[in-house]
């Protein structure tokens, strides 16, 4: 109650005290009047006897106050008044912090959601991920490795496996929709220690039985959140599944940021993909998570994996073709698995790290800029601080006041920064989301604010407020009353701003511009270097044929009709079909060899293999150097297939002769190359194509075999899975329209999994480079703007403060054109120091980025020169208005002004 009194009855207490004192004085005066004094004298004597009434009131009030809190509140009120007096500068300072914090929030929100966020399972830090890795790629493990590892390891309670999510057509009753499916081993929920929100997991479900678990969101939207969902049937790829459970609300799959709608047992991958999906030793498509036993460390799991690996490789692949040859550089690794598996993380982890580095630089620049603003403000108030100190104020009180005033800038900057940051994060995600062909619904990638992001940004803001306010506060508290009170010109009071804040800003700007140049140059090189494709005027599509149930000759004829319908669309020039679209990031490898005319055997252990129709090359814009695949027909029945090699592979197999009409052979399991020449495992070279960056534009062109097939005579899609097509037309929109019209005309029941222009595919492929280039460019522009604003603000304030000095100089005959030279000299000293330091720092930053991103930083000198020129241009631009203002000073006005 007393606390409430102190908080809410302070005015009442003050009023009562005033009444009490008044009554005391009146009573005293009456007593004196009773002794014979007149009223006036009695009242005066009463007041004299009482003493200082105001002092008494103040001392009485202090009893009920919290002195430290009162002082803090007073500092807040004072700081707010000072800041609102110079509204323009305050707004600029707040916006500076808001933009810096906004960039930090946006990038950290992405980093949190993509890289750092743990799976919503109990003790996620006890999860570990197993994968075969060569240090660059970590594709996963094969089915045989998973089974053997599960039997032989002892550091985890169990291992769960899951494979790449698939987009499939799901039918429930009369509803059909395209959904993301996750195939997970039956022990999945047990290893994750998850309890279903409804029903059960896969454990204990009898075989053969097709149980399905729904995601919480799918259950809510499709089944109304009803318990009656249990036991209902879903049809996926012509198989009926029975719903046995619902995942917990917070769990959104093991592949982070791509929440599936339905979970089915892992063996279903042999239906959706290929029968040997889980048994083929070279199919490293399984992701594996284990839960460490209590007391077991990650290093123990790693040691165990190293010890088990040799036997695993031998027993999982007795032929030695895959693990002994193709993947001989891949080793079993164990990594922390708290975040699950995420291709997003694998793709964007390093770019986000680079962005965090750039954001740190940007925040440093914001700190330097705000410190400059505060130093400029403090330097103009030295007289005031000197007077306060002379009147008895403590230096700590002045220190506190300045820190509080700086914090008042930081707080609205934080709030605005958080809002800007979330808007920025949503924009980034929507940009990234459009790139994800794998997601059925990009809006499922939910970027939500949470306590961690708010806490991190609040901590960053506190650090900024403290570091920004520290130097100005120390400067203010060190004020010397004896000197500063005598100084009549505020500008020559002790402690000017100095050149170092300018130098810091310039150095950071040079770094950021140089980094932006490096990353922009990297993107430009990837876009302009010859890729082996002509990206313009072409479109691609992946079409799911499973609803059509194609088979045999009927399926082939239907496929041929579709191909003809596509070719007949207006504007279409070429239509090419392929088993694996270029720039998809997916690839199949095989081992093959050749025997040249000198009977030398040339082996290549890791050749990329894809199937294409003859028109593919024209469709993709890949030039054929020699041979004419279109004139070669696929021989029916058994025998050598026709194939085209890329130029590098042709040279490798037949270094001294033309490869055309030569044979190459796929290696036989367990036999050395050359021992078995099986025509059924061979192909006849009918053409040589130029090298093309088939897998990704950022990777060099792989050694590639294009196995030919002809739609009219043989369609490997007659079993009804997917068609992947590339269409070249007069324009991109015509190509896309042609695809959609042909599908509507010939394949009405099917659904397009993904369609895009060829340039769009390239943009997806280079998504992270584009993100880095655009964001680093934005940060660089912001850095230049902040540097320019900082310089401009500093000089304008200096001109305002040193008006009297300028007036005296002009009155004494100084030239108006060069009046600002002495001051500008100081500024350019800072710029010069900043440029020198910035170039060194930019070199270090560029090297760091190049190493992280595997870039070749050959353009450092050009980048630094451009950065230096831009910063100089900004500096000159910022100096001009203050110089003009100084030149326009009227000496008479300046001398009269105080």
């Amino acid at each position, binding site marked *: 109650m*007393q606390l409430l009194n102190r908080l809410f009855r302070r005015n009442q207490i003050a009023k*009562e*005290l005033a*009444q*009490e*004192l008044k*009554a*005391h004085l*009146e*009573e*005293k005066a*009456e007593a004196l009047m009773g002794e014979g004094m007149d009223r006036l004298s009695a009242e005066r004597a009463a007041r004299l*006897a*009482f*003493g*200082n*009434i105001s*002092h*008494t009131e103040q*001392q*009485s009030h*202090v*009893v*009920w106050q919290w002195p430290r809190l009162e002082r803090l509140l007073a500092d807040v009120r004072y700081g707010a008044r000072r800041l609102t007096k110079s509204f323009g500068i305050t707004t600029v300072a707040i916006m500076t912090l808001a933009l810096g914090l906004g960039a930090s929030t946006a990038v950290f929100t992405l980093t949190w959601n993509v890289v750092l966020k743990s799976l919503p399972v109990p003790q996620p830090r006890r999860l570990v991920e197993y994968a075969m890795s060569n240090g660059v790629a970590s594709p996963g493990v094969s089915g045989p490795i998973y089974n053997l590892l599960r039997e032989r390891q002892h550091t985890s309670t169990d291992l769960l496996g899951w494979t790449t999510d698939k987009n499939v057509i799901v039918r429930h009753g009369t509803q059909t929709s395209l959904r993301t499916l996750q195939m997970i081993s039956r022990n999945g929920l047990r290893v994750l220690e998850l309890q279903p929100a409804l029903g059960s997991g896969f454990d204990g479900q009898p075989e053969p039985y097709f149980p399905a678990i729904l995601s919480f969101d799918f259950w809510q939207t499709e089944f109304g959140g009803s318990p009656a969902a249990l036991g209902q049937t879903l049809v996926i790829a012509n198989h009926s599944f029975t719903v046995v459970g619902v995942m917990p609300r917070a769990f959104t799959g093991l592949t982070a940021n791509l929440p599936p709608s339905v979970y089915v047992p892992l063996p279903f991958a042999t239906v959706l993909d290929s029968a040997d999906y889980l048994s083929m030793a070279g199919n490293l498509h399984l992701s594996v998570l284990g839960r460490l036993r209590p007391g077991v460390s990650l290093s123990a799991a790693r040691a165990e994996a190293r010890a088990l690996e040799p036997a695993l490789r031998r027993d999982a692949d007795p032929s030695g073709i895959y693990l002994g040859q193709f993947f001989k550089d891949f080793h079993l690794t164990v990594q922390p698995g708290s975040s699950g598996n995420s291709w997003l993380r694998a793709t964007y982890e390093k770019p986000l790290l680079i962005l965090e580095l750039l954001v740190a630089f940007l925040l440093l620049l914001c700190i330097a800029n705000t410190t400059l603003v505060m130093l400029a403000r403090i330097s103009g108030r030295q007289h005031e601080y000197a007077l306060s100190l002379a009147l008895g104020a403590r230096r700590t009180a002045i220190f506190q006041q300045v820190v509080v005033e700086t914090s008042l800038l930081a707080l609205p900057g934080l709030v605005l920064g958080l809002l800007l940051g979330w808007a920025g994060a949503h924009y980034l995600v929507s940009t990234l989301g459009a790139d994800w062909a794998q997601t059925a619904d990009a809006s499922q990638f939910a970027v939500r604010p949470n306590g961690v992001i708010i806490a991190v940004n609040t901590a960053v803001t506190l650090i900024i407020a403290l570091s920004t306010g520290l130097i100005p506060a120390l400067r203010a508290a060190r004020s010397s009353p004896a000197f500063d009170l005598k100084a009549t010109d505020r500008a020559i009071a002790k402690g000017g701003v100095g050149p170092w804040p300018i130098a810091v800003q310039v150095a950071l700007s040079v770094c950021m511009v140089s980094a932006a140049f490096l990353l922009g140059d990297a993107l430009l090189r990837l876009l302009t270097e010859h890729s082996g494709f002509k990206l313009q005027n072409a479109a691609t599509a992946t079409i799911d044929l499973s609803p059509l149930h194609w088979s045999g000759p009927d399926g082939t004829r239907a496929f041929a009709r579709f191909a003809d319908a596509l070719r007949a669309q207006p504007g279409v020039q070429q239509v090419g079909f392929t088993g694996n679209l270029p720039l998809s990031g997916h690839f199949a490898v095989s081992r093959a060899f050749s025997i040249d005319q000198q009977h030398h055997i040339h082996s290549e252990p890791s050749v990329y293999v894809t199937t294409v129709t003859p028109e593919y090359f024209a469709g993709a814009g890949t030039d054929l150097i020699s041979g004419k695949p279109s004139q070669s027909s696929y021989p029916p029945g058994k025998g050598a297939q026709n194939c085209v090699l890329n130029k590098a592979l042709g040279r490798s197999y037949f270094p001294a002769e033309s490869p055309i009409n030569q044979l190459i052979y796929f290696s036989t399991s367990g036999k050395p190359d050359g021992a078995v020449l099986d025509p059924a495992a061979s192909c006849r070279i009918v053409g040589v194509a130029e090298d093309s960056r088939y897998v990704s534009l950022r990777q060099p062109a792989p050694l590639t075999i294009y196995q030919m097939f002809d739609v009219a005579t043989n369609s490997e899609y007659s079993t009804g899975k997917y068609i992947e097509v590339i269409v070249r037309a007069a324009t991109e929109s015509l190509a896309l329209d042609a695809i959609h019209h042909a599908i509507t005309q010939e394949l009405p029941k099917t659904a397009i999994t993904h369609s895009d222009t060829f340039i769009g595919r390239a943009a997806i492929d280079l998504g992270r480079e584009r993100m880095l280039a655009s964001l680093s460019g934005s940060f660089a522009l912001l850095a230049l703007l902040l540097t320019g604003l900082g310089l401009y603000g500093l000089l304008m304030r200096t001109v305002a403060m040193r008006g009297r000095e300028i007036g005296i100089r002009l009155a004494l005959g100084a030239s108006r054109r060069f009046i600002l030279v002495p001051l500008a000299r100081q500024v350019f000293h800072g710029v010069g120091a900043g440029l020198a330091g910035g170039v060194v720092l930019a070199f270090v930053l560029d090297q760091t980025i190049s190493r992280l991103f595997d870039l070749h930083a050959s353009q450092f000198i050009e980048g630094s020169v451009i950065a230096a020129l831009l910063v100089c241009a900004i500096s000159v631009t910022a100096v001009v208005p203050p110089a003009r203002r100084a030149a326009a000073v009227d000496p008479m006005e300046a001398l009269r002004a105080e």
Partner: protein
Amino acid sequence: MMVLESLRRQPAHGYALVQHIQARSNNLLQVEEGSLYPALQRLLKTKLVRAEWGVSATSRRVRTYTITAAGLRELERKRIGFRQMFDGIALVLAPEGAPSGL
């Protein structure tokens, strides 16, 4: 301590307290009137006294202070402490050979 002792004898308002202390000390103690009220606020805050508005004998609206049970205990404690201090000072100041204790 003197304020608490005065209030122990009878509740009083500020001016009356000043008069009481001066009268009881035969005007040897002159209370600085301005310092009385901060002291009363401290006593109020620590709940050694309580206060309520009323009307004085001279029909004036005054705030009368009354000692509380906690105030009585505090008064006794201070009295014992003061007594000990007084005895100690007297012993130090007593001439040599004078009987110890008073």
